[in-house]
């Protein structure tokens, strides 16, 4: 009895399905890459598939964490890919103009410049959404479209290659035998979790996402909260932009961070954050981003033919999203468990369903007022 209740508590944990998918995806690799889980020392740093997944997945985790807070307020930020391109372009073009590209002061200044540009983009998004009342999808579309043009203007349409050891550290270097980007991600995630779960900030973000107008009436400065999350999201994208350009020691205005906004939104959804806003899970988002990166690595290692890459990805994503849906789970599992315990299986679908409808209803009110 206790084991079944424990099992039920486990499967009902919001992280259960994302983690289960991640584990299955990792295991799928083993027949194709026998030493998939092995990690060895090479040139003074750890080397292995798992290290690669975290290293290449770091920018996505960062962008997705920022995106989570924006989505929690009921918004969306499509401009993160362009912000990634702008930040990388600014930092690299500044470094390439230096006489000594490896001078620490110059590199720090370059990174500061890039992040400043990211913050400005975030302020612009927040201003349009919170002050001007423009739909987030439209407001952030502006920088998504124009930002890549700005990045190309900065790089002159060329790929800027730099040769700077300190700059290489943030996205491609190692520290204490681990990729340095892991530490950056850990710090950002830890700060986010502490700020949102140890202070009232997370609650405020969720209440703004639940109902912005009601939050304002009870005295929450919902506009300020909204501006803040867009700035935070852009800052995360900016750090990711530094990482991506640092990883290849080059700024590519055309391709850096291309479509990362969609991967980030997907990671947020896989992690169990509702696109309607009002609740969020940073841990879920991190797992979601790792699922996406593992999926990408899996495609490369198991030898899916290039033409069917996207079909394979689509099938996995559909399965993950279906598993995430309480209604789908209730249908499938109650049908299977039906003979054994009809009451238990039948009980679970009724619980999440009304929650979903109320969330939709509360969201409908502010939406109508804005349009």
């Amino acid at each position, binding site marked *: 009895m206790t084991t079944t209740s424990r099992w039920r508590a486990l499967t009902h944990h919001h992280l259960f399905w994302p983690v289960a998918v991640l584990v299955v995806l990792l295991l799928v690799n083993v027949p*194709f890459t026998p030493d998939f889980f092995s990690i060895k020392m090479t040139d003074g740093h750890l080397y292995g598939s798992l290290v690669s997944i975290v290293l290449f997945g770091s920018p996505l985790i960062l962008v997705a964490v920022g995106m989570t807070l924006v989505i929690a307020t009921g918004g969306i930020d499509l401009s993160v890919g362009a912000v990634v391109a702008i930040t990388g372009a600014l930092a690299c073009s500044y470094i390439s103009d230096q006489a000594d590209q490896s001078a620490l002061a110059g590199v720090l200044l370059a990174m500061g410049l890039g992040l400043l540009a990211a913050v400005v983009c975030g302020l612009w998004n927040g201003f349009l959404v919170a002050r*001007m009342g423009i739909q987030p999808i439209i407001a952030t579309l502006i920088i998504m479209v*124009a930002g890549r*043009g700005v990045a190309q*203007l900065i790089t002159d*349409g060329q*790929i800027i290659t730099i040769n700077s050891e300190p700059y290489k550290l943030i996205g491609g270097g190692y520290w204490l035998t681990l990729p340095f980007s892991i530490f950056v991600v850990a710090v950002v995630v830890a700060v986010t979790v502490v700020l949102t779960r140890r202070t009232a900030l997370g609650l405020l973000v969720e209440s703004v996402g639940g109902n912005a107008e009601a939050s304002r009436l009870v005295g929450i400065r919902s506009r300020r909260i909204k501006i803040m999350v867009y700035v935070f999201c852009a800052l995360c994208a900016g750090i990711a932009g530094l990482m991506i350009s640092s990883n*290849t020691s080059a700024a590519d205005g055309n391709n850096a961070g291309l479509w990362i906004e969609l991967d980030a939104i997907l990671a947020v959804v896989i992690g169990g954050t509702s696109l309607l806003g009002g609740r969020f899970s940073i841990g879920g988002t991190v797992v979601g981003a790792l699922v996406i990166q593992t999926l990408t690595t899996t495609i490369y290692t198991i*030898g899916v033919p290039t033409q069917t*890459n996207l079909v394979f990805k689509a099938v996995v994503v559909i399965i993950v999203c279906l598993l995430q849906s309480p209604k789908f789970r209730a249908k499938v599992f109650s049908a299977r468990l039906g003979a054994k315990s009809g009451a238990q299986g039948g009980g679970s679908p009724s619980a999440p369903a009304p929650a979903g409808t109320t969330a939709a209803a509360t969201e409908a009110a502010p939406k109508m007022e804005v349009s």
Partner: protein
Amino acid sequence: MLNRRNFLTAAIGVAAAGGLAACAKKEESGSTSTSGDGGSKAITLGFSQVGSESGWRSANTDSVKSAAKEAGYRLQFSDAQQKQENQISAIRSFISQKVDVIAFSPVVVTGWDAVLKEAKAAKIPVVLTDRSVETSDESLYVTLVGSDFTDEGRRAAKILEKVLEKAGHKGPVKIAQLEGTTGAAPAIERAKGFKEVMEADHKDDWKVVVSQTGDFTRAGGKQVMAAFLQSNPDINVLYAHNDDMAIGAIQSIEAAGKKPGKDILIVSVDGVKDGFVAMSEGKINAIVECNPLLGPQLMEVVQKVKNGETVERWIKTKESDFMQDQAKDALPTRKY
């Protein structure tokens, strides 16, 4: 009231964004500039470029401009900013200006029949550069000046033979292939040409063990190669469809503790400057050139067409192959 205000701000925002986007291309934004000595007998050439989306493309533009200047032609240059409608209106304006020859790199493959018929009716010959078009009537253009991607694939396989010989390689050749963007003509044809030679001459000893798209980008090449090295640690040759992917892959090979150019022999296509830098450092073994500097060849063709001489339907760009020992000498001459 509120709705209208929101709409207005949105409109202003979009307009501002449009302005920013336009800034990015302002160098050549749709304007038609004239260069050349303007002598009375000089040939007038109308040239419509795709846009300025890559370093390869800007090198291509510079080459056409400087070659026209050198040949003493009047050049009407127009940048289509990746839009077919811009290109069609540019060609129409060339027709109304009665230029002697029209040249253009088509943005897309289809949809050119109407405007090309107008050019034919005005008796202005049309030369395609870099990319081809599909038309119902083959007489609508005179010739295509551009690269043969399939042949680049064949040349890559041929030069790999030389590389293997030079490295004194013995035993089976296990090749990893980094493909370009799925569905793009250069990606399909570079893979096809390579396969042709491999199946004809090296059916037994060569094998492509893994092949995956790296989207022609450095980040793509790096990530895919990192996964390849895990799943197939015995790879000893890398064939990359462009230099950027090879440069990305080199970083992954180094992270795995192997020596690019020694433990894993690398052949790539394009010949951009950074590719040559990597080759001069011994990290790439050979590069098959895909030449954007087709300006001089284009001017030659224009002269012939103007004189009424017959030219071939497809004039292939002059391209060379480079081995490592040529890299240091060739590097200072690379313009892009």
